[in-house]
């Protein structure tokens, strides 16, 4: 018993020493910052600034955990006196919250508050002074461009995930058996590394209204001898030309994930199906695809969420003209002009994305089990 107390005491003294050390360092740093000379020196030296940031950040974290735990164990629920056992239990119930609190606070500050703030802002008019209730939403509902954007967005949310997942699945299955399959995979995956704006630039050339530049028009001229057109102005279908860019980018993502899933299928179930007389197509659709259905759903919803956020492609390719408007680019039209309407659109987007996201998380959790 005595020995135990001794070691406990020793570790407590050690702990205190560390706290004093960190506290001292922080104090020195804080005081130093108050001196104009030191501040001047810092202003000229990014390295010093970086080091100081790290020291303050890491030290602050360690300090927070040490201090809050000490307060909990020594002050609020001391492991002494009549209630020692009960206090230890209570302290252990509180402790996880000490660790979670910073993350909660950060999430609240950077996620929850903006959501609430945006919603409140969307209830005010352009100036931000006059409360107009759901006036912005009512105005959106009757605006034909908004209706167009919602319709196009629904199209995007259906076509792009379906296209990417389908092409990704086919690519995963076909490249699996090829000797040069890995090269093919790398090529298909490569667009993933290109930013949306970069990809849009590439496709601007592909769709260029000039048979000498745009491969689409070059092909039309070569096969049909047709004159050049601007594919981006072909109403309705131009939406699909834009979607194709995102499919081109996202197929690689779908392929990589689905290829891993396909490899996880037990080979013997495939062989059993072959013995049972299934054709290669039947093996694929009746044995393989159902077994990776969970992964397909996760890929599908992940891409859906991405689609609902996509903005760059439309903005760079058409600027939302020629009937290609979607919600994010529509929102951008109002930014800096009418924050009330812009936040209202943002809120609509959030309402659409949330259920998909919840579904996605549920599916991904199921997959992990």
């Amino acid at each position: 018993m005595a020995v135990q107390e001794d070691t406990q005491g020793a570790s407590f003294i050690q702990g205190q020493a560390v706290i004093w050390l960190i506290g001292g360092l922080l104090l020195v740093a804080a005081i130093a910052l108050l001196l104009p000379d030191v501040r001047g020196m810092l202003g000229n030296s990014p390295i010093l600034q970086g080091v100081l940031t790290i020291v303050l950040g890491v030290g602050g974290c360690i300090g927070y955990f040490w201090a809050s735990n000490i307060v909990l164990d020594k002050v609020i629920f001391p492991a002494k006196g009549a209630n020692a056992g009960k206090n230890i239990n209570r302290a252990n119930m509180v402790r996880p919250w000490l660790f979670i609190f910073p993350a909660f606070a950060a999430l609240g500050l950077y996620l929850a508050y903006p959501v609430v703030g945006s919603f409140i802002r969307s209830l005010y008019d352009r100036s931000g002074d006059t409360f107009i209730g759901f006036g912005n939403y009512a105005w959106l509902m009757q605006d034909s461009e908004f209706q167009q954007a919602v319709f196009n967005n629904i199209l995007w949310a259906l076509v792009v995930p379906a296209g990417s997942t389908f092409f990704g699945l086919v690519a995963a299955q076909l490249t699996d058996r090829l000797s040069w399959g890995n090269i093919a995979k790398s090529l298909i995956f490569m667009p993933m590394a290109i930013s949306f704006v970069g990809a849009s630039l590439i496709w601007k050339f592909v769709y260029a209204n000039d048979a000498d530049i745009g491969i689409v028009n070059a092909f039309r001229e070569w096969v049909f001898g047709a004159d050049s057109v601007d594919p981006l102005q072909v109403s309705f279908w131009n939406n699909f030309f834009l979607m194709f860019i995102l499919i081109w980018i996202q197929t690689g993502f779908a392929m990589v994930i689905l290829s891993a899933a396909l490899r996880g299928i037990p080979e013997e179930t495939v062989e059993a199906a072959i013995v049972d007389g299934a054709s290669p197509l039947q093996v694929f659709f009746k044995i393989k695809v159902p077994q990776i259905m969970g992964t397909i759903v996760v890929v599908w919803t992940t891409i859906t969420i991405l689609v609902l956020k996509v903005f760059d492609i439309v903005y760079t390719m058409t600027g939302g003209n020629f009937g290609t408007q979607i919600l994010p680019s529509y929102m951008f039209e109002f930014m800096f002009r009418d924050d009330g309407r812009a936040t209202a659109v943002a809120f609509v987007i959030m309402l659409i994305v949330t259920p998909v996201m919840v579904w996605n998380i549920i599916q991904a959790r199921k997959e992990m089990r």
Partner: protein
Amino acid sequence: MANLKLKDVAKVYGGQVEVLKDIDLDIETGELIVFVGPSGCGKSTLLRMIAGLEQISGGTLEIDGMVVNDVPPSERGIAMVFQSYALYPHMTVYDNMAFALQIAKKSKEEIDRAVRAAADKLQLTEYLDRLPKALSGGQRQRVAIGRSIVRDPKVYLFDEPLSNLDAALRVATRIEIAQLKEQMPDSTMIYVTHDQVEAMTLASRIVVLDALKDNGYKYSIAQVGTPLELYETPNSEFVARFIGSPAMNLLEGEIVATGETTTLRTRLGAGTITSNVPSRPEDQGAQVKVGIRPEDAVATDSEDFAFSGKVEVEERLGEVTLLYFERGAGQNDPVIAKLPGIHPGMRGNTVKLTADPAKVHIFQDGTSLLYR
């Protein structure tokens, strides 16, 4: 309902790795043939070639007199039960069993009848709506068997079907398979295992695979025979030691008298022992190995003994007592005797062992004198 004929069957993986060579085997209708052999000897490979899941690299395979080398698996009239069961995880038990018939576009009533009959036979009726993951190992195994039964194949192929089950379930399922075979006397079954007890209890004939010297050490058939033939008259040291547990004792010795029966003197202990295996006059003085199964060894006081040694370890199992004798320097596998009943206090004693002449085997250069 089918006989199989394998002629010079060989398997080469990737054009280089020769695994099996010169497999010649005739399987009659209604037989239950068991393939045994050390791990990696190609048992699964051979079975998969019969199933059509592996290309046959050489020789021919006939089913019912028709060469089927290039016939796809589903048209060979075979069904296979895999070691991992290979159930379709996304289908219910019913759909698992119905799948082959659905692919074959059988009518709904016909499928239903076949599935329910099989489920009834295997006590699976109450599980038909469950997914495989909600079944125990033994039930999954039965679904896998049911899946082959509904197809009413000519040949059943089993690849170590019991190796994923625990010991008690293995015994129960083994008996079920034996009963199943009895209910279907016309169907031919080929069964791969590395478990001797399964081989001995189930097989009508056992096929032992081994790497043979005169085959360039490629795996081939070492011996084919009924379980008791292999046990009583193994044709080689390998088969002799592979069948039976603990393995047969092999003692180095010399032939001292030839004729209808053979008399041998063993190197260790320098006693003599007689075997009913006949020998020729020119065998006089030949260096051979004398094989005695542990369960055939008897303790003796006479001067005619095969082995004499000190008991190092004594294992009392109740029904039998196992005695382990040190063989002497440089030889680490002990001589083992399995004596019926309980024999306390044998440890440290020097014991002389001999055996009934009918149960003494003689091997020269790895081959039994009976088979030369």
